[in-house]
């Protein structure tokens, strides 16, 4: 990470960005915010928090997400000839049990990203209801692993909110969740046989 001071390193060629670069970097708040900040700090304790080193847990959780997700993807997309098709009755209420990953207050997953996830979720729930029970169970476990990872990373971000690596790990968990949903939606039909 650069330690250069603020301001463009090279003057932008685009006149619009040049205008933006000329804007004042400092904007004074309408009132002094320090008294409120000092009060909140005093309420929390007298000294900065000792760093709780949660990164190993967060790293382990993120690694587990990647491993489990890769296994799940392989399980779902493997050659349907090799995968024994299930003969199951439709379970229209099975998708109702699905709880998407909840991202904590320190994560930077945007409202737009959550909306995109939720848009895919409906289709996923429909496909999920047609899967074999053991596949549904595996997916539920996979989602639980992702939830645990999101919780660990969120807790680590609370201690180290400036960490780009933790943000990246959280973004990876989000992508794995989306990948799981889209994999089920696209591959689910080849893995089931309805009665």
């Amino acid at each position, binding site marked *: *990470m*650069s*330690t250069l*001071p*603020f*301001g*463009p*390193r090279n003057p*932008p060629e*685009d*006149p*619009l*960005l040049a*205008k*933006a*670069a*000329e*804007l*004042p*970097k*400092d*904007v*004074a*708040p*309408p*009132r002094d*915010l*320090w008294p*409120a*900040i*000092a009060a*909140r*700090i005093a309420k*929390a304790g007298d*000294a*900065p*928090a000792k*760093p709780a080193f949660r990164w190993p847990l967060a790293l382990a959780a993120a690694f587990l997400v990647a491993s489990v997700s890769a296994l799940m993807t392989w399980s779902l997309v493997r050659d349907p000839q090799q995968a024994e098709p299930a003969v199951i009755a439709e379970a229209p209420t099975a998708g109702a049990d699905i709880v998407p990953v909840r*991202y904590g*207050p*320190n*994560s*930077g*997953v*945007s*409202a*737009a990203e*959550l*909306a995109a996830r939720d848009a895919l979720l409906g289709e996923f729930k429909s496909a999920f209801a047609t899967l074999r029970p053991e596949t549904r169970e595996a997916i539920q476990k996979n989602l639980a692993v992702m939830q645990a990872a999101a919780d660990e990373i969120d807790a680590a*971000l609370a*201690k*180290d*909110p*400036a*960490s*780009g690596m933790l*943000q*990246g790990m*959280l*973004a990876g968990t989000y992508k794995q969740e989306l990948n799981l949903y889209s994999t089920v939606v696209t591959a689910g039909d080849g893995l089931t046989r309805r009665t």
Partner: protein
Amino acid sequence: MPAPQVDSSAELVRRACRGDMGAFEDLYRQHIGRVYGLCLRMTGRPESAEDLAQDTFVSAWRSLPGYEGRSSFSTWLHRIAVNTVLARRRSPQGRNEISMTDDSGEQMDFEAEGRMDEATPIDVERAIASLPPGARDIVVLHGIYGYSHEEAAEMLGVAVGTCKAQLHRARHLMRTRMGTEQAT
């Protein structure tokens, strides 16, 4: 006559880490303008920006022992501010806040017109404030505060290519809204 006191951020950070609130207040005085400016420009809402700037400094205080000096203190503080803004946007409170743009970036309130070379700083600020959040973020971080695409992408938790695409979109929207380019 006492020598003029020159206190760098590094020394203030060391003292603040030991629980010196006076040193942390000095850090606040040094950096509040840029932190508030960043929060204000990313949200477009003065009330939210005040809350977010407060949250940023409280979070920074708690995290000071974890600051290892690999980046400048101001960059570290800005990372916290960006994460704080992004987390607020995701919260139910943030989702209910009124924005000057809708999700697709359609303009809701912007009337500036004129050529780019005649644009005043207020015109540019208003054009930036009218952008959809993703495009606005990259203009603020890259265009105003001078972070590289790589740094901005890391702060925002997106790919570098996404940053560049958002900047391209932002430039087009701003030009259109400032009357220097026909809408397509």
